[in-house]
């Protein structure tokens, strides 16, 4: 059975700046953009390992390069971005992870909370490791 008729629809186009009209959309775009911060730090750590593998001189060169004021500012911006990205990410975790204990799913705050806890514990451990070894 074929249904053919002439239909004229009105279609509204979406502007490329669609995301500027609502705070939730701006926040979403920021969350997506700040993944660049994550990439930035990942790259930096890879470069750090690479320079350390080349001995003390390599490490000295690396420190000298990242002491550049422009890089310090870049690092700072990326750090703020990373914090934003992590917070939004952890807040979303309960949506994707539903863990049932017995017959009831764990409340969202427990899932998000355990993510934050893990974050803090790992950070403290790294901080402790660094301060104990210098």
């Amino acid at each position, binding site marked *: *059975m*074929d*249904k*053919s*008729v*002439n*239909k004229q629809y009105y279609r509204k186009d979406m502007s490329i700046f669609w995301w500027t009209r609502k705070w939730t959309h701006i926040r979403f775009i920021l969350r997506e953009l700040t993944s660049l911060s994550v990439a930035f730090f990942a790259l930096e750590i890879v470069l750090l390992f690479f320079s350390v593998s080349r001995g003390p001189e390599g490490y000295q060169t690396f420190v000298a390069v990242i002491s550049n004021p422009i890089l310090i500012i870049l690092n700072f911006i990326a750090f703020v971005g990373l914090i934003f990205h992590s917070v939004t990410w952890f807040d979303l975790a309960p949506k994707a992870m539903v863990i049932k204990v017995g017959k009831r799913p764990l409340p969202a705050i427990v899932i998000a909370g355990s993510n934050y806890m893990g974050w803090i514990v790992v950070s403290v451990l790294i901080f402790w490791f660094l301060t104990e070894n210098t």
Partner: protein
Amino acid sequence: MSLPFHECDVLIIGAGGAGLRAAIAVAETNPKLSIGVVSKVYPMRSHTVSAEGGAAAVIKDDDSLEHHAYDTISGGDWMSDQDAVELFVKEAPKEMIRLEHWGCPWSREDNGKVAVRPFGGMKNKRTWFAADKTGFHMLHTLFQTSLKYSSVFRFDEYFVTDLIVEEGRCQGALALEIATGTIHAIKAKSVVICTGGAGKVFPFTTNAAIKTGDGMALAYRAGVPLKDMEFVQYHPTGLPFTGILITEAARAEGGHLLNKDGYRYLQDYDLGKPEPKPVLRSMELGPRDRLSQAFVKEQESGRTLQGPYGDFVHLDVRHLGAKTINNKIPFVRELCLKYENIDPVKEMIPVRPVVHYMMGGIDTDIEGATSLPGLFAAGECACVSINGANRLGSNSLTELLVFGSRAGRSAATFSTRQDTFSTGIGSLFEKENSKFLSKYSADNNGSESIAEIRNEMHSTMEEGAGIYRTEASLKKSMDAVKSLKVRFENVKISDSSKTFNTEVTSALELSCLLDVAETVIQSALHRAESRGSHQRTDFPERNDKDFLSHSLAYKKEDNVPEIKYKPVIITKWPPGERVYGRETKQS
């Protein structure tokens, strides 16, 4: 553009619970048959979606088919055909289990079995429920299940304007494609009407806007009688403006019905004494029809309140406190807050009796077949009859499964036996098209407003054919409806567009409503007795000697419908007294 002609083996009109169940039944009976499903709305918009309470079927060991049958028959004041009821209660559990197998999220007991709850007028608990959204879940389960059959082809948002009747049998339907204003001819070897009720004949109703009796009118115009149309069920507590139903649970928890003086008026109507705590079978927990009738008496004595949407009384639950209201009747509070801007914790709820269900409908046998070969019907639009003079709560959802399925199987068998169509459909199509262009278009030069005719029909139905009727009131209403029908011939269409013209569909709906209205009035006029939901103040007693029979309303051109009768089928349960009060056990 190809000509708008289509062919299918079975055409189903209406895609609510009964229509979808019928479609699945056809697909299962004979997978080779092509099935057209035409509906004026998308299937999931159908009014089945609004049913809250539940669906009855015997499944627990302490219950029996015999009990279900007796509850149905006594509830229907012995107007039900008992062979149909026996068959209904027997097939009900199987149908309900199939729906469970298709995924309906029935509420469960801890051991994983389906849970049942008590309901008005029942001896045992047998109402299956899916929280307080039973109809919604049933409809969506049926719709989603219907998607798996490739033989089902839907015509969504097509309004059927006429049945195609050739060589003495029904061979399809003509339908207006709402999006384009084009008339299509859908040829079919058999047709099943599943278009639901016609609550919109009345001003105050729980029914959705789409329930305009379209299918009843289609069959009626094709010469098929409408059966038992005088029986219209009221629910005593609906919100006056929207008709949203406030469940009996609000009264079972201890809500009071108060007139304008703040007085619990039910004590004046032989319904017991006012106690602070709710007492089963008394006062606010009396039977539905008695409560509705008491409202009318109060109204006549001038003790109801007047609001912008007519008279009302108050349902007061404030004394229960926010905690009880939130725990026990959260849905009541949600409905009032969300859709009527009233908070029952702080304010009294305005309520009044509202039309809930039409027991009558297209006359069918237990196979869903009508007197017109090739035409079948099921659901609220049909009258088998299992509901008699008053439907038992939670039978309607089960009915649409049992009889939707039966009508589907019958139609499939009928279509399998037919091999050809008649040839004359082209001229019928031309005729309909030209009628349509001259009547339902902005060029018709009409002057009568759709809204005004509708409003006048509403008030005359409420006044003359409402909860209480008399010969005089019914005759007055009939005169009014007759003159409205004359005025309708001159209806004004101001919208000249062919695209999604809802003024045209409103006019089509109104023409159906007017036809249904005249059958309700005429059947009520001829039934000179009081039985179930039909109450005549001039004939207050039930009269089994003269009226233990179904009324049949036949269409007469340019005249009032002709009323004939056929006897009620009695198998095991001779007419007895209808004992009131059991309905109060529900929550």
